[in-house]
């Protein structure tokens, strides 16, 4: 099994490059690579109360803990699947609608392992990594979970 230092776990303040993530996990032991890209949809909220269109997201992280927890998450995934290399990249700061906020890539000997471990990583990342998003509309900005107008 590959050493963990073959992983790339980062908080990034500029656009994420999915092709670079695939390149980073490519290696001779890999038969399958799965990559997930999370983006912000340009959705018009049905409960729009005059706040206008969604302009961007602002992501804030607790960086030291987020990185440490992302490392642990990859370790937990390695206990279940034979991951050769993993990439976990999350944006911080302003992310325009349509841009990627998160990129996860894993390489494994077989494809089922790649799909399952990649899915695990994004599901768990969304549950437990200390990162928060603020939705910035034309008319207002608010943190996810904050009640409207609060």
């Amino acid at each position: 099994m590959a050493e963990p230092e073959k992983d790339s776990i980062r908080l990034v303040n500029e656009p994420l490059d999915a092709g670079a993530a695939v390149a980073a996990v490519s290696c001779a032991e890999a038969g399958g690579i799965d990559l997930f890209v999370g983006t912000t949809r340009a959705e018009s909220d049905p409960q729009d109360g005059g706040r206008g269109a969604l302009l961007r997201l602002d992501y804030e992280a607790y960086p030291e803990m987020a990185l440490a927890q992302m490392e642990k998450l990859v370790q937990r995934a390695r206990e279940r699947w034979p991951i050769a290399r993993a990439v976990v990249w999350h944006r911080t700061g302003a992310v325009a609608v349509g841009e990627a906020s998160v990129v996860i890539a894993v390489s494994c000997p077989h494809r089922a392992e790649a799909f399952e471990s990649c899915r695990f990583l994004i599901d768990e990342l969304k549950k437990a990594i200390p990162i928060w998003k603020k939705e910035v509309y034309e008319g207002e900005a608010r943190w996810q979970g904050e009640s409207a107008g609060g």
Partner: protein
Amino acid sequence: MRVHVRLFAVMAQDAGTGRVDLDLSRGAGVASVREELQRRFPKLRWPRGTMWAVNQEYAASEQEPLKEGDEVAIIPPVSGG
């Protein structure tokens, strides 16, 4: 003893700061941090599902005693991804 408190997202917005140092009595737990924060920042909302971390590890219980120099983070529900 002094502990270093970190606040994020909506809670940092409410408090007007992301960092507060608190002087607590020896052996105080995170419950004391909450009381002290709410006293200092009356506008601080406490979202349902808010968790704690001590030295960058999620804390199991509000009763867990803190030590001098601990970093205590208040983690409102996360929304990364």
